[in-house]
């Protein structure tokens, strides 16, 4: 479904991604792991078009998406969440999700229809599926950190994605919140047939949830395989899991 080949990206004085390879197949739950600064977030930003790669190929559903703008890539069926809670702080929870549903339905430039009568059902359904329906009228900026992260996922779901990219979905969460978030991720994958690509620091979470794991270091792909394969790999043992 998603194929990343030999991707490179450098900023002024350092190389963030230096030959990353990644393959994601339909229905998989792929985790990207690696130490801080390994280039995980940059990789995600390259895939979703928020950054432009210097070199390499990104194919999604047999289409080159390297050259596309972020909003075009989204239209191809890739939605994402961000590392820091990237929501619309001044809007209500309902509106946050509605914005992305409207965008998906190509209604966001509609001028003469009241927004409050549009895509209400779809929005509610998404809020319900992530458990935020009860807070739909709260101002997003006033939510707890955990709820903000969930809201982010809900926004991403508004795009009816085929591939959902989550950048450290549990960063900054309490253990309980982490558990319930990952439960949500698993359930989304199961119930909605979503393919999910995420990165995560908590190894327990990763090995519990992921069907495949890609290990990055210094911007390069060390290995990609099932959790078992990764666990057995000596290089990874040394480089990364050794200390864990």
């Amino acid at each position, binding site marked *: 479904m998603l194929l990343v080949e030999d991707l490179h990206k450098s900023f002024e004085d350092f190389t963030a991604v230096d030959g990353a390879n990644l393959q994601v197949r339909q229905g998989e739950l792929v985790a990207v792991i690696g130490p801080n600064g390994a280039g995980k977030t940059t990789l995600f930003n390259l895939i979703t078009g928020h950054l432009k790669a210097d070199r390499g190929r990104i194919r999604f559903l047999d289409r080159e998406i390297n050259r596309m703008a972020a909003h075009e890539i989204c239209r191809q069926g890739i939605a994402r969440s961000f590392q820091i809670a990237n929501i*619309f702080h001044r809007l209500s929870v309902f509106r946050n999700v509605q914005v992305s549903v409207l965008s998906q339905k190509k209604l966001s430039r509609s001028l003469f229809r009241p927004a409050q009568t549009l895509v209400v059902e779809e929005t509610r359904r998404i809020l319900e599926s992530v458990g935020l329906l009860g807070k739909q009228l709260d101002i997003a900026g006033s939510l707890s950190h955990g709820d903000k992260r969930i809201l982010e996922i809900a926004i991403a779901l508004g795009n009816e994605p085929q591939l959902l990219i989550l950048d450290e979905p549990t960063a900054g969460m309490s253990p309980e919140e982490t558990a319930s978030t990952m439960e949500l991720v698993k359930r989304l994958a199961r119930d909605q047939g979503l393919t999910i690509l995420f990165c995560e620091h908590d190894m327990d979470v990763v090995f519990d949830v992921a069907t495949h794991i890609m290990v990055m270091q210094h911007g390069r792909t060390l290995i990609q395989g099932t959790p078992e394969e990764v666990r057995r790999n000596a290089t990874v043992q040394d480089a990364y899991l050794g200390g864990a």
Partner: protein
Amino acid sequence: MTRSLILSRSSFGWSAALLLVLLLVPAWAGRFTIYILAFVFVMALLAMSLNLLVGHGGIYQFHHAAFYGVGAYTAGLIAAKTAWPVWVGFCAGPLMAAAAGWVIGLFCVRLNKLYFGMLQISLGSLIWIIALRWYSLTAGDDGIHGIRMPELLSGSVTIYYFLLAVVTVCLLSLYLVYKSPFGVTLRAIRDNPQRCEAVGINVRRHQLLAIIIATFFAGVAGVLFVVLEGSIFPDMLFWVLSLEILIMCLLGGWFTFFGPVVGAAIMVTLRTFVGSVTEYWTMVLGIVLILLIFFLPEGIMGINFRNWSRRRSRRAAARAAEDTDAAG
């Protein structure tokens, strides 16, 4: 859609009451009141159109007056220099303003925040220079005065009602825009453009559309100014006026819908009434602004919401915010 769906019942009530009062004003008010209210209408529409960008779109349109001027000059020049009916000018003014907004917007939407604002000031100033320097067409810095309006629009009361009608229609249209999916998306862009791209929104195209809409209404305000005063002059396109209308938005409450109207009313009232008492009214304005910044950071209409949230439950506050997306 029924009206009650678009306007909530209470704000509909308030607006209707205000409109009724304004409709009745000529019956008992002095001529100057009628005139200055009409002037407030023009400024209010201008500030409202700017606020669509600044308050709702997070777009730093620093030189909005340029489009007000384009609208006014188009209408004024057609009325003064051609034999065409003035109505042609009335239609052409906003369209020219929107066209100018589109062209300048094309350049500017590639830039962010202050850079956007500065490029916009420069491009707007180029229009100002045309108005200032094209002597044979625009009469340079003297401007053109005494532009004749049709008989229909000669009495000051008629002008008042004409302006009131046009501004009401425009504000209603802006309100529809504000409540539309586009309005919601625009506020989302203001809050977080990066996130908007990630949900498939073409941010620049939305911003450009917002600029076109806003400059169109700025052009309408320009036309109304010509109807009211019969004058066009280059100061209308000078950046100082742009700054003033920006202040009106911030003063009234830039995250609210009606804030700029209040801001415009206060600025004009302050200027007229404090200005008649002391020549240092700008200092008074400065002090008022500083007090406002310290005690009412969300503008005058912004205060409402804060009080509200203290009085009512959080849910009610959020419901109110849902209506305006005004929360802080």
